[in-house]
């Protein structure tokens, strides 16, 4: 019997296309259990996209949870070891609270993780696969890249105090320039300390232009090594880096992510459909010494987006 691929819906086609892409690139499929001990999520709640977790007590009295996230389980179940990093890919259901209804929702997620002695070359490889994942879609798309080290250099000029830092970071994520100025003024931060951050938000757009502008300020703000990292990781996408933009308003969660982070957008879909980056800080928090980079594709956001016809 042959399988008629026309019977598959968009999401099913995309799952297979993504799995093929990742496995052909040397990523090993990782299958996991639907449940995990609640404690894992309780300790890392702020990493999760939504607060709510479906819990139940198993037959031995342990409090268990239906997985709200895949990355935490992969980190927890892996071991640090030297040599080439572990390359894992997955497609799994996760269970999260919908912001609009407040009810639990089952969401299919696909993604990959590269964990171990990760260098900037591996980050570039993951970035390329994120771009290629978006290329599978039959709609205009864009990969937006940022470097948290660069953002941090500008944030640190304002304050090391966590209170204002979190609020300023929220404004950065909203491209809310007036909000940054108001907050800083209200906390007595001098204009010359916060204006560079506001000007950093204007440094966004196509890769060659952004890198040129960063070169121009890298000495003044001591962001030379980070700019070089960004250049090296983006170089795997080719000189023109089609459909790729740099935007420092892409902030992620700085408690977990470090270095390069990125998000994918598709025309006609209101929010990001792909999200990822380097998460060495999360690894440290979970007692792992390895470095890591990965991303997830939110398949529920792509239900109405066709997969490219020539796939």
């Amino acid at each position, binding site marked *: 019997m042959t399988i008629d691929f026309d019977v598959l819906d968009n999401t099913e086609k995309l799952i297979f296309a993504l799995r093929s892409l990742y496995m052909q690139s040397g990523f090993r499929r990782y299958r996991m259990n639907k449940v995990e001990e609640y404690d894992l999520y309780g300790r890392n709640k702020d990493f999760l996209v939504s607060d709510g977790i479906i819990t139940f007590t198993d037959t031995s009295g342990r409090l268990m949870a239906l997985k709200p996230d895949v990355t935490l389980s992969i980190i927890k179940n892996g071991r640090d070891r030297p040599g080439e990093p572990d390359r894992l890919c997955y497609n799994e259901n996760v269970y999260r609270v919908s912001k609009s209804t407040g009810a639990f929702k089952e969401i299919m997620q696909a993604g990959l993780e590269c964990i171990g002695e990760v260098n900037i070359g591996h980050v570039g490889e993951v970035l390329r696969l994120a771009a290629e994942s978006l290329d599978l879609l039959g709609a205009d798309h864009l990969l937006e890249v940022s470097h948290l080290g660069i953002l941090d250099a500008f944030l640190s000029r304002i304050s090391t105090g966590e209170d204002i830092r979190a609020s300023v970071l929220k404004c950065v994520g909203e491209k*809310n320039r007036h909000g940054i100025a108001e907050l800083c003024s209200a906390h007595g931060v001098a204009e010359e300390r916060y204006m560079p951050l506001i000007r950093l938000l204007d440094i966004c757009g196509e890769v060659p232009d952004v890198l040129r502008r960063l070169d121009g300020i890298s000495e003044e703000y001591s962001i030379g090594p980070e700019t070089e990292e960004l250049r090296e990781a983006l170089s795997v996408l080719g000189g023109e880096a089609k459909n790729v933009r740099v935007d420092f308003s892409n902030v992620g969660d700085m408690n977990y992510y470090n270095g390069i982070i990125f998000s994918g957008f598709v025309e006609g879909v209101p929010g990001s459909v792909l999200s990822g980056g380097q998460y060495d800080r999360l690894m440290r928090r979970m007692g792992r010494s390895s470095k890591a980079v990965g991303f997830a594709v939110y398949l529920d956001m792509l239900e109405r987006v066709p997969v490219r016809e020539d796939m």
Partner: protein
Amino acid sequence: MSDMLNIALPKGRLGEKAYGMLADAGFSCPAIEENGRKLVFEDPEAGVRFFWVKPSDVAIYVERGAADVGIAGKDILLEYEPEVYELLDLGIGKCRMAVAAPCGCRGEERHTLRVATKFPHIAQRYYASTGRDIDIIRLNGSIELAPIVGLSDVIVDIVETGSTLRENNLEVVDTIVPISARLIANKSSFKFKHGAVERILSGLSRRVEEIK
């Protein structure tokens, strides 16, 4: 549909004022000025389509991408925390989010404070920062009535001139946050309709500077 820039305006005085600023900045749609019940107006030449929506819904239209940009009060953004870009403070519709109580009465501290409001999240966050134990009573209108008839001890609401409060023997006991209208944009639209959104942003920025 995708080539046009879709703009959600809040129905009412604030929306009309915001439309005036947009028209002055070169984004007009003459049909919108005719009275009628139409909700959608477009000017293909200017490449814009306007929607009139309930003020509290503007953020939803923009967050979900039905509108690319919109004009929303900061009160709505603080209450619903939509995933949008907040690009500009228009400096219009200025008022404040405040706690008001019957004159001379702030609610006894030995009791749980009963707070009537249309903005439960803003009220919750504000009182969480003070450590006071509260009971939120969510209402949809005539908030000032609540303390008068004993439904609540205080209210958390928008105060513009304070005349409604005074007429009902209420006074502001604390200002939570100043409020004004903001230009917001859908995150995806900002990327795929970048040129058009930037034109609106720079046109409105110029108008804001002129008005100052």
